[in-house]
């Protein structure tokens, strides 16, 4: 860690690193402050209005609904206090095997995306930057899964593992593997396969983002480190990673939100089982069936209210790992 900081400081020295707007000498005094305020207001006006109208106003409905239930006699939604939320926690606590498993599956996407997929993408991005032979071609190919329709990717993926049509099992048998498991036929195998699929197909987007960030590192810093005789591992961990830390943090945060957003992969790979439900998929299916919207609203809201502070805490903690370096 201290070495990493030293490297980061070296980078900072090279770049005469940054000061934030606040630290800048306030040459124009009050005037500057006022103009800054105007700037902030003008710039944020449209994004905030857009957010207010198309997110807040739209979701007010969801929030209000989460405290309601449908009254079948009057045909209206009526206030029912925290009843929906209480039911959410009762179900997770064991009242419903499906809900409980849904939450567990969803939470598992966090380690899978953040501790398997993300480190792999960093490693891949770094070596793409290091000009592995054919790097340009690899970069295009690695991005393929982001543009090939999910339907085709999932179709080839599951066909490949089909016990009689696929080619994976024959290869394994030829290699002497016995007792080949049912890949998609039982839990938790099917859940593990979905995770494997997510890693396989999901690296591309991360690689585009992270290798974009790495290749923006000034050439001088990398060369400087080379002159110092820094090895690959140290170069990666002590220079490259600290320098692109904000991008990594952001990708990590996005990985955290996948707990709430993953839906297409289980829907396509295991279409008719509740074993591999995720929070988003459960809500999607529930909305599609139109059953008990208030409960689903409360479910989504409760998950987010618990999840978002945790994500922010993680973001805060990650921000402490390396000092921000501007270059």
């Amino acid at each position, binding site marked *: 860690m201290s070495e990493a900081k030293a490297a980061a400081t070296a980078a900072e020295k090279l770049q005469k690193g940054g000061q934030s707007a*606040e630290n800048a000498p306030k040459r124009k005094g009050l005037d500057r402050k006022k103009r800054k305020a105007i700037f902030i207001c003008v710039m944020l006006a449209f994004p905030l209005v857009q957010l207010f109208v198309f997110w807040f106003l739209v979701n007010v409905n969801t929030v209000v609904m989460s405290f309601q239930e449908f009254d079948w006699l009057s045909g209206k939604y009526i206030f029912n206090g925290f009843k929906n939320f209480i039911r959410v926690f009762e179900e997770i606590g064991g009242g419903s095997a499906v809900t409980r498993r849904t939450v567990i599956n969803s939470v598992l996407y966090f380690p899978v995306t953040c501790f398997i997929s993300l480190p792999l993408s960093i490693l891949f991005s770094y070596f793409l930057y290091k000009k592995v032979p054919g790097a340009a071609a690899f970069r295009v190919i690695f991005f393929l899964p982001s543009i090939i329709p999910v339907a085709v990717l999932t179709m080839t993926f599951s066909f490949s593992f089909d016990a009689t049509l696929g080619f994976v099992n024959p290869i394994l048998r030829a290699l002497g593997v016995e007792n080949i498991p049912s890949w998609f036929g039982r839990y938790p195998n099917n859940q593990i396969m979905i995770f494997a699929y997510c890693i396989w197909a999901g690296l591309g987007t991360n690689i585009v983002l992270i290798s974009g*960030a790495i290749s923006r590192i000034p050439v001088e810093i990398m060369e400087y480190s*080379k002159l110092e005789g820094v090895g690959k591992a140290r170069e990666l961990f002590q220079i490259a990673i600290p320098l692109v830390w904000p991008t990594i943090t952001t990708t990590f945060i996005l990985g955290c939100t996948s707990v709430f957003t993953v839906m297409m992969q289980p829907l396509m790979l295991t279409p008719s089982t509740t074993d591999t439900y995720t929070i988003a998929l459960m809500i999607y299916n529930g909305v599609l069936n139109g059953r008990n919207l208030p409960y689903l609203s409360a479910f989504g809201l409760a998950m987010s209210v618990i999840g978002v502070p945790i994500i922010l805490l993680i973001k805060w903690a990650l921000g402490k790992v390396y000092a921000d370096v501007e270059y």
Partner: protein
Amino acid sequence: MNDTASPRANGQGTCAADKTACAEGLKKPRFKVTKDWALWVVFAVFFVYAVTLVFPFVWMLFNSVKGNQEYFTNIWAFPQSFHVENYTNVLFDYDVHGVTLFGMFGISILVTLFGTALSLLMSSIAAYVIAKYKFFGRNALYALAVFVMAVPVAGTLPAQYSIMQTLHLTNSIVGVLILYAGGFGFNFLILYGFFKNLSWEYAEAALIDGCSDFGIFFKIMLPMARPALIAVGVIHAIGLWNDYLTPSIYLPNTPTLAVGVNLLLSELRGRSAYPEMFATMIIALIPILVVFICFQKTIMENTVAGGLKG
């Protein structure tokens, strides 16, 4: 853009063009051997991974020219016959609300280009201001952005639709573009990370020169953010290009490619016409692939030349 970028890249000397060789020239030869060895191992890993990724694409391509029976008989076999009509049928014989695939391409390009531009502008504004200026509520806005990403919404469509109706934005491309122009979300988070470590020193100098905050953003920061904007923009554009939900609801009479193709695909799947289905997918895929390959070069050149010191 490319014309100006390339000489600068070269201008950074052989080191920039081939850093490895350059640095190695200064080091002990032993280092070079181990290094190449490591790179080749990585190459092998990349190669295997790449093969698994190319495979679905090639599989789809092969099956898109098979006849239906041939496909059902063996999905892995090399095509025995070439049914070009799978492609011509899809291109010329099908339409949705009188719009052929060509027309859908046009609508999609329009929506994607303007939608991406607007969204990039809005999210870079929001990300830049929140990353670089300290003001009351800035952390709350960041938290809000994460919240927006994380809340799995349940059935908000009717509410959204009624707001769009009140604003007279249904059945209009402008309405869809305004929906797309959100400043908070995936793009915001990525650009926030980017602006966070973008140097303030140029802004500093410009401020001293009497440049306004607007000038700094539009003339200095936004151009410097070009590599990030391109990376995010490509991903975003692909997202918009493939978006089904929004245009299907708000542009019912002017189907985008995603909407039209989805309708076609479901019809083809209903008839188990998988080869034609794959042909449709390939047709929808090719423009994205072409654009991506073009932009991939731009990304590379931009990023090599884009270093602040360059």
